[in-house]
């Protein structure tokens, strides 16, 4: 598994991943946010949410986490296409092609898992895929709420759309709590002066 050329390819893959730290999430620019979060920042919290949601929905946690770790990686090659762009370009097909190419850089056991889990995620049929999708949308919803309390009022519209695509009970309940909250988790934790 670990010949020198394998190591060279894995190294290349890790450098490629760095692109996600520099690529902004495109949808926010349409709603008027000029310096939005990057893909890696979104993916990080999506994995954490996926972990929690899989626990609440009693399904395979590791699988849900991996779907959320992997499914944004093809965006290093095709960028993040927002919903307007997606009405002109077939991003799902492009992502599948990019993932297949990327998997050649990885040891075969990892590469196969990578391609298969992205496929399963996009097909939205298994329990794990449904939970992972909900986690992905939920992350966007929390971010929208954060933008909203900071004055970006168009995020409200975005939250409404997300409300309609949530599937699992736990995700729906969490979204309701998120919408009720002001997002200021630190209240009560400050040292008194």
């Amino acid at each position, binding site marked *: 598994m670990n010949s020198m050329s394998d190591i060279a390819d894995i190294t290349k893959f890790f*450098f490629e991943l760095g692109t996600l730290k520099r690529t902004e999430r495109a949808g926010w620019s349409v709603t008027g946010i000029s310096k939005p979060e990057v893909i*890696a920042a979104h993916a*990080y919290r999506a994995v*954490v949410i996926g*972990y*929690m949601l899989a626990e609440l929905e009693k399904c395979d946690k*590791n699988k849900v986490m*991996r779907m959320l*770790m992997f499914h944004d990686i093809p965006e290093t090659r095709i960028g993040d296409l927002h919903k307007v762009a997606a009405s002109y370009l077939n991003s799902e097909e492009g992502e599948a092609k990019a993932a297949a190419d990327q998997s050649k850089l990885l040891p075969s056991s990892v590469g196969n898992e990578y391609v298969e889990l992205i496929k399963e995620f996009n097909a939205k049929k298994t329990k794990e895929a449904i939970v992972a999708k909900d986690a992905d949308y939920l992350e966007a919803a929390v971010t929208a709420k954060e933008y909203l309390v900071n004055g970006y009022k168009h995020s409200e519209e975005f939250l409404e759309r997300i409300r309609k695509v949530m599937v699992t009970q736990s995700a729906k309940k969490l979204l*309701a709590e998120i919408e009720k909250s002001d997002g200021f988790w630190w209240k009560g934790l400050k040292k008194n002066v």
Partner: protein
Amino acid sequence: MKDIAKFIFEVGTLKRIKRGWLKSEGVGNPESVAEHTYRNVIVGYILAKMENADVGKVVKMCLFHDIPEVRIGDIDKVAQRYVDKSETEIKVLEDQLMNLPESISSEILSVMFEFFEKKSKEALVARDADILELLFQAKEYADVGYTGTEYWLQQNSKLLTTESAKRLFEELMKQNAFNWSKGLENLK
């Protein structure tokens, strides 16, 4: 549900906390902690496979170990000369997880105790994944033109313990960080 929602908001702070590259390298707009952690998780996943360690456990160690930084900030290597965070992190984490469902908090805490002990194979692999991520980032800044990162590349690479991580480090020093896309362009 209310407490889980609160925790998810809290964790989001890591998307806005910058890592120490401004102080050490003058990088004006450095990466956030969340960005570092994301690649750290993927590196951990692959490193665990290469080292035949428990992949699920390594991934969780990588995913959760930066969460205390929400409350105490990113205490970099220079700051650590003056502020001792080693005992504090686990205390902060206990506070952060206090109101979450028991099944979640107990799993995260037990994985984190193991990580901070730096003894088990999984803890060593996760630690190497954390350092490797930093090394990849340092090389990216170096290839953009931040010359000071050379020093951090040498210093931090000495901390690696697993064979696979050491070989990946040797290889990353040979490559240019931005070569991966060469040859992939469609010029039609």
